[in-house]
């Protein structure tokens, strides 16, 4: 069973389009994250939700909007895509406070042309 899954795995789209990436975890974790990894492998946190509530919102353009319909899902919607949005986006989950281990999804490679 996949612990943290993301769809799609690859996403190629044109500038100006709107797209969504879905994430689901079946670990029963309370906390979920979105990270962006650029071509230099730097992994930057974007958002974190705990029990469906937003708790971390880093300096991310407001074109990016996370949505957590329930504890097991954290989706990322991106409006008006730009070339600089091209990256690999990772979803992760964590049991919550008191636990360091994060479980990452396989990533979604977004290419904006």
């Amino acid at each position: 069973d996949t612990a943290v899954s993301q769809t799609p795995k690859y996403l190629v789209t044109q500038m100006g389009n709107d797209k969504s990436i879905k994430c689901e975890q079946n670990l029963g974790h309370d906390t979920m994250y979105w990270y962006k990894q650029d071509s230099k492998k730097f992994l930057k946190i974007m958002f974190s939700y705990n029990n469906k509530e937003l708790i971390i919102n880093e300096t991310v353009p407001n074109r990016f909007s996370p949505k957590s319909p329930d504890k097991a899902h954290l989706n990322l919607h991106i409006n008006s895509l730009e070339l600089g949005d091209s990256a690999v986006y990772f979803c992760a989950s964590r049991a919550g406070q008191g636990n360091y281990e994060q479980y990452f999804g396989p990533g979604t490679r977004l290419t904006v042309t």
Partner: protein
Amino acid sequence: LAKTTQPISMDSYEGQEVNITCSHNNIATNDYITWYQQFPSQGPRFIIQGYKTKVTNEVASLFIPADRKSSTLSLPRVSLSDTAVYYCLVGDVNDYKLSFGAGTTVTVRA
């Protein structure tokens, strides 16, 4: 959050021991040290975590000196499949935000 500094890259050969040192001079009392491994085209994977002295599991060992201002991840007898990026993280277990740095790219050659 404590800032961490690691080497950008390291090369090794199969069968050797690889030691990656991470500096974290401003580590706080409640901070733990955690290491992740990331293979190409995959998400990072938790390897090991420690607070002080030495921690060992089936994958690696983590050495933390008494002042805790640095830590060393030791990978014994590496193989080609250990080629990956290794990230050192330092943070309070009660923090929701655990920041990843640029990591150390370890390349194992035959």
